[in-house]
């Protein structure tokens, strides 16, 4: 089940529009006038007056109501002085926007936004509109809209709605929505003056973790005048708390996994360049940054929903080319001199950062999240954010592909051969210089791919790389240099450990504790979790 914040209004609005399409056309002229009058009032009204006007609008029978209310909630309803009427902006652009007349829907061309005066909605008004629109979807054929309608009722339970909910409960085919309906009715009963009604209602509400239900229950448990009701509410709450506790643990585990997968993504490219080749590449973070900027560029040309699948190979290519250029231009002269490599690549990282500042400006770029990656999904009882879930999956995919590339391809074989014994590999006819360049390109390309994932989580700006470089090295060193599996295990365990510590110690201390643990661990096992054995380890 997917629920998206802005989706709710949009869908129910659509349903409302469909409903009102059937309104007879003959009365429209008169209706238009009435609507104009209300809209004219809306412009001058205070927020509380606006709330009344919105209720008036909802009760009006006019095909444009849904569009107008949606626009008001989204901040797209304007007043145009020139034509003396309310207009709807059809785009969120900051400057020039196409508009249409609010009442007739007639297109009015493109205007400068500063010539329009926005009819402002505040949070309370927006919630009201959302609820009003949602509650109309109770008899919709789409279970999602029905659920939204019941949820809207939960947010502001009113006795007037009870009869409709009861009627719906009789015919509702969906089991989950049935349960929700029952809970909604119990919530109304909880406010009943009769203690004999309140007590069973409180009992029925146990186990519901939603704030809309748990909140009133908490109040009743603390403040109700009747002892049996208080007891019932407390027992019900105990059930809720137990569920919440379990959910909390599951949630922490998922958070840890998802942080872990981000760490792995950031570190896995480094595991190739640092781990396999032994190059300390301080510009690794900037290669991720390049990947993230590639994503942004793709979004300038392609619709947001399609941009990511295109951005992944593109980011790989761009970052890999930059990586190869760095290897051929600088690093190959410095093999075997780790300190110089470190300094040189640090310099490169600064150059790349400032280059991005000059080309794209120092301001962050806004990378939009595609629809299929926003919102939450229910995994059993656990609500999981979709973007994190996608990134966990993406991490597994990248890891598998890289592993296959190293284990099953000719290049992989050569890479491993050169890493294990360069002289011997060369004697066997492996062109080690070419292999070095390609390996570095591979590691850099993977960093670019990680950048695509990061663009969905954090700022796309010149500093993106810096924020991840320390973490990446941490993961690789902890996992054991030169071992992909080590990187995987290290990333996951650091992620989970961080998330387990965080609620208990706070984010700042959690980071410090993990770092201290790592330092102590490296003292004990300098080669990490899974050290390379054999001759390669000595090189």
């Amino acid at each position, binding site marked *: 089940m997917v*629920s998206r*914040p*802005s989706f709710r209004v949009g869908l129910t609005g659509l349903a409302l529009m469909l409903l009102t399409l059937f309104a007879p056309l003959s009365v429209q002229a008169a209706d238009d006038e009435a609507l104009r009058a209300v809209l004219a009032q809306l412009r001058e009204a205070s927020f509380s007056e606006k709330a009344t006007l919105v209720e008036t609008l909802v009760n009006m029978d006019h095909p444009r109501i849904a569009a107008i209310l949606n626009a008001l909630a*989204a*901040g797209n309803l304007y007043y145009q002085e020139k034509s003396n009427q309310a207009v709807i902006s059809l785009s*969120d*652009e*900051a*400057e020039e926007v196409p508009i249409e007349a609010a009442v007739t829907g007639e297109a009015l061309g493109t205007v400068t936004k*500063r010539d329009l*005066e*926005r009819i*402002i909605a*505040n*949070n309370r008004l*927006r919630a009201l509109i959302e609820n009003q629109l949602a509650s109309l979807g109770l008899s919709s054929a789409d279970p999602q809209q029905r659920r939204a309608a019941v949820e809207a009722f939960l947010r502001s339970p009113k006795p007037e709605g009870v009869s409709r909910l009861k009627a719906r409960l009789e015919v509702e085919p969906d089991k989950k929505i049935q349960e929700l309906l029952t809970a909604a009715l119990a919530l109304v009963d909880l406010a009943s003056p009769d203690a004999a009604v309140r007590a069973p209602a409180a009992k029925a509400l146990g186990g519901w*973790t939603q*704030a809309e239900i*748990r*909140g009133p229950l*908490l109040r009743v448990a603390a403040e109700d005048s009747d002892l049996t009701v208080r007891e019932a509410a407390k027992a019900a709450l105990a059930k809720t708390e137990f569920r919440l506790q379990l959910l*909390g643990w599951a949630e922490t585990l998922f*958070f840890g996994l*998802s*942080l872990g997968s*981000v760490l792995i993504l950031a570190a896995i490219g480094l595991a190739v360049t640092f781990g396999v080749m032994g190059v300390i590449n301080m510009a690794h973070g900037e290669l991720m940054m390049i990947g993230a900027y590639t994503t942004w560029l793709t979004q300038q040309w392609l619709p947001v929903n399609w941009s990511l699948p295109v951005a992944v190979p593109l980011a790989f290519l761009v970052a890999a080319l930059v990586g190869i250029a760095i290897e051929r231009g600088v690093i190959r002269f410095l093999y075997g001199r780790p300190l110089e490599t470190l300094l040189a690549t640090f310099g490169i990282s600064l150059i790349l950062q*400032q280059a991005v*500042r*000059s*080309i*794209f*400006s*120092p*301001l*962050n*770029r*806004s990378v*939009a*999240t595609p629809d299929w990656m*926003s*919102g*939450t999904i229910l995994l059993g009882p656990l*609500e999981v*954010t*979709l*973007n*994190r879930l996608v990134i966990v999956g993406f991490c597994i995919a990248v890891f598998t592909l890289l592993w296959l590339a190293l284990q099953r391809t000719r290049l992989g074989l050569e890479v491993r051969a050169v890493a294990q014994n360069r002289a011997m590999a060369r004697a066997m006819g492996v062109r080690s210089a070419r292999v070095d360049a390609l390996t570095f390109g591979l590691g850099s390309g993977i960093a670019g791919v990680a950048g695509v994932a990061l663009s969905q*989580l*954090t*700022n796309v*700006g*010149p*500093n993106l790389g*810096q*924020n991840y470089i320390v973490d990446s090295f941490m993961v690789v060193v902890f996992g054991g240099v030169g071992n992909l599996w080590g990187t995987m295990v290290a990333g996951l365990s650091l992620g989970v450990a961080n*998330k387990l510590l*965080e609620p208990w110690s*706070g*984010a*700042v201390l959690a980071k410090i504790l993990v770092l201290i643990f790592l330092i102590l661990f490296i003292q004990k096992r300098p080669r990490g979790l899974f050290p390379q054995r054999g001759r390669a380890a000595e090189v």
Partner: protein
Amino acid sequence: MTKTVPKTLSWLLAGALTVGATLAHAADTIKVGVLHSLSGTMAISETTLKDTVLMLIDEQNKKGGLLGKKLEAVVVDPASNWPLFAEKARELLQKDKVDVVFGCWTSVSRKSVLPVFEELNGILFYPVQYEGEESSRNVFYTGAAPNQQAIPAVDYLMNDLGIERWVLAGTDYVYPRTTNKILEAYLKAKGVKDVDIMINYTPFGHSDWQSIVADIKKFGSAGKKTAVVSTINGDANVPFYKELGNQGISATDIPVVAFSVGEEELSGIDTKPLVGHLAAWNYFMSVKDKANDAFIKQWHTFIKDKKRVTNDPMEAHYIGFNMWVKAVEKAKSTDPDKVIDAMVGIEYPNLTGGVAKMLPNHHLTKPVLIGEIQADGQFDVVWKTKGLVPGDAWSDYLPGSKDIIADWADPKIHCGNYNTVTKKCSGQNY
């Protein structure tokens, strides 16, 4: 995007030219130092302010300069490096002999240059909202003090939105810590209980907000209306807001009011999931006012990009710069001592329809506006203070500072930290 390359180059050229011009005829111009980071982490916010000052100087020169002389910008780059701020400030004052400096963003950079300005008797205009608890003779604070931003915002949440439970979330450094201390004391004075306040600090650039947002969600589901008061700084805001949107917390459930998120920061975010979250500032680009329209037009012409936004610290520089011009005209000299004395009491119209006045404590009178984020990255004003609020350097809600006042105009006090109980000035200069 590639269009910006020539622009940057032209800046470099302009910078080089100014340096050249400096050497040529030093006495013919009045020099204005610009001390904003153009590289490093803070470049994201500070570059815009450098451009603003250059625009203001340009404008003043078109009007014929000041005291019959042309103004000349001396731009340096402290590179988001706090000790470097002090070095560059010294360079500006001693080597370039600038008459005034506009600069700094973070509190730590201000604290780092403060001794330099006091030692060399320079003038600094500091344009960003900050934590207060400071008043130097050599600094003019054109941004908001806590009582001009944080306290009114909390009042709005409490009285107009009926908030009963509070999350104070901030980045772990001096501004959020001090502001939250003030807010906590204020909330408790208003009868909010300990259990209804949750305080959370995160490191700079924190990017994994999952568990903190989940905690906020849990904290907010206890049946009382909850709000987040955010002093989260800079880059960390984007992932924070993204996580809020992803976990389905909309502004109608738990509103977030931010003190460090403005139009500039929002231009790097997809704002659709954020509609309705709040920010408290003394200026919004969306405010309808003739002066504001003219300022925005001027900015767009100067920067040659119609998509660029204006924000609160830019207005602060606009007011500060014009006040300095008036003070120099009044003193008929750029001598720091004369200008500093002339500054107090100067009035200049702000961009939202009021008049800013420089107070004896070197802070301004400002209106406080609460805005809600819109889908186009702008804010709509949903509430504003009745009149202008005078900036208070020393908070009335902290035990250590409530008896302290700053007054640089009264010859009997002439001090930045005068204790009204002991009738004494503590030894420091600020």
